[in-house]
Each structure stands twice: as C-alpha cells, then as structure tokens.
C-alpha cells in the first residue's frame, strides 16, 4: 500500500516537473525564475497540511490517549519542518534575482520563518523527553499552542509589514494568473501532497515498529 503511494508520488513529481518546465510558459515579468514557485507554493501548502495534522494528532492524543495520534503528530511535525525549510530556501533563492537580496522581512517569508522556529522547537522538545507518555503529552500541548498561534502570527506580521513596507516593486500576485501557470501549480501541489502522504505513512510505520520493539 505504501509502495503504491510512493510510486504515485514519483509519477506526480515527474508530471509536475513536466508541467512546470515544459507546459507552463515563461512568465512575462519575472522570467524563468518564476518557475521556482512550482516548488515554493506546493511546499508551503504541504507544510500547512502537516501542521494541521500535528494539531489533529495533538488533540486526538490528549482526548483519547492512544499512541497512534501521537505518532501522527510526531511524523507530521518532522515532515512539516522539512517542507517549511524547503519553502524558506526556495523563497530565498527566488528572492535574490527578484528583489536583489537573499532575505527580506516581507510578511510571507517572516511568517514562514516563525512557523519554522515554532516547530523546530516542537521537535527539540520531543527529542529531549525519553518517557514516551510524557513526551506525547507535552508535545501535544506545544502542538496545539503552535497551531492556534499561526493565524495570530499571520496577522501580526502582516500589519507590522504594512508599517514598514517599501513601495511594492513587483506584484506578480496581483495580475490574473495565466491558466497554464495555474494548472502547473495544481499538478505540482497534488504531487507534493502525494509525496507528503508517502513520507507520512513511512514515518508513522517506523514509529509504530519502534514502539513495539
């Protein structure tokens, strides 16, 4: 079952690459650099999916005390951090030719960076507690707080940026999206979700086996 998922993911990624490089046109304003978005946007969407699952697993564990929920939270947290890191790196690389700098404190990058820090802390907490029961409990509390905090972070960063915003140079988000670009984004998003599901299944299986050993 998991193997099928894995192959589907590979298929999806190949299709995504084809769509992103072959099918989608060269973007008018940004040029080819825009193709990084086929990596960046699906990565961040997948990360949000991951952290939603961390929330679900955390609540599930505290409500039922069944370790399956904790395994979900742990696996989703780990993979979520991976994809968040990818989001930040791809965003930064995209930013260099676009804005001229590797890093800028714009709303999205800043929010994503904060998200990254919150869940790295989550993983750190998990790594420092040996007793599985205490680990699951404490991680669940942090998982819930971290997730609930996400919209609060989003708004605070957005309003903070509004104070310090330099004149917006490029606003590619504003113009209507070329349907070809939209389709390429969609295909890549599906591919990333499949990959995430595959990673999640394998990681949870490892956790289950570790518990039994």
């Amino acid at each position, binding site marked *: 079952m998991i193997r099928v998922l894995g192959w589907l993911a590979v298929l999806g990624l190949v299709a995504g690459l084809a769509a992103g490089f072959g099918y989608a046109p060269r973007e008018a304003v940004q040029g*080819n650099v825009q193709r*990084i978005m086929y990596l960046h946007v699906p990565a961040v969407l997948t990360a949000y999916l991951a952290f939603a699952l961390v929330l679900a697993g955390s609540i599930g564990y505290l409500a039922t005390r069944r370790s399956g929920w904790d395994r979900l939270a742990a696996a989703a947290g780990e993979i979520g951090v991976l994809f968040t890191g990818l989001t930040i790196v*791809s965003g930064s*690389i995209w930013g260099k*030719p676009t804005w001229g700098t590797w890093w800028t404190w714009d709303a999205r990058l800043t929010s994503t960076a904060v998200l990254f820090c919150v869940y790295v802390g989550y993983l750190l907490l998990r790594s420092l507690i040996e007793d599985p029961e205490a680990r699951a409990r404490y991680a669940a509390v942090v998982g819930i707080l971290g997730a609930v905090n996400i919209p609060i972070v989003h708004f605070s960063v957005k309003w903070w940026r509004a104070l310090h915003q330099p004149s917006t140079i490029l606003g590619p988000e504003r113009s209507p999206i070329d349907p070809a670009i939209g389709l390429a984004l969609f295909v890549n998003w599906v591919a990333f979700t499949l990959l995430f599901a595959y990673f999640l299944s394998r990681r949870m299986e490892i956790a289950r*086996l*570790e518990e039994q*050993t």
Partner: protein
Amino acid sequence: MPSNWGYVFAAYGIAAVALLSYWRHLARRTHALAARRAAKPRAT
C-alpha cells in the same frame, strides 16, 4: 531580463537533495528496525 536558470536549478537541486536525503533516512531507519526485530526473539 537575464535568464536566471542558475537560480532555478539551485532551488530544484536543493529540494531534490533534501527530499532524497529524507527518503534515504526513512529507508535506513526501516531497515535498522527490521534487522533489530529479526535478531531479537519475539517477546510476547
């Protein structure tokens, strides 16, 4: 507008390395677990 393919490949390259590394990490952990379970007598 310069071609900037270097950046595109850098981004995709890093992503590929990261995802492949994580996949290998999962594979290795699975094998290690399987080996440990095979070596231990099944405790009921």
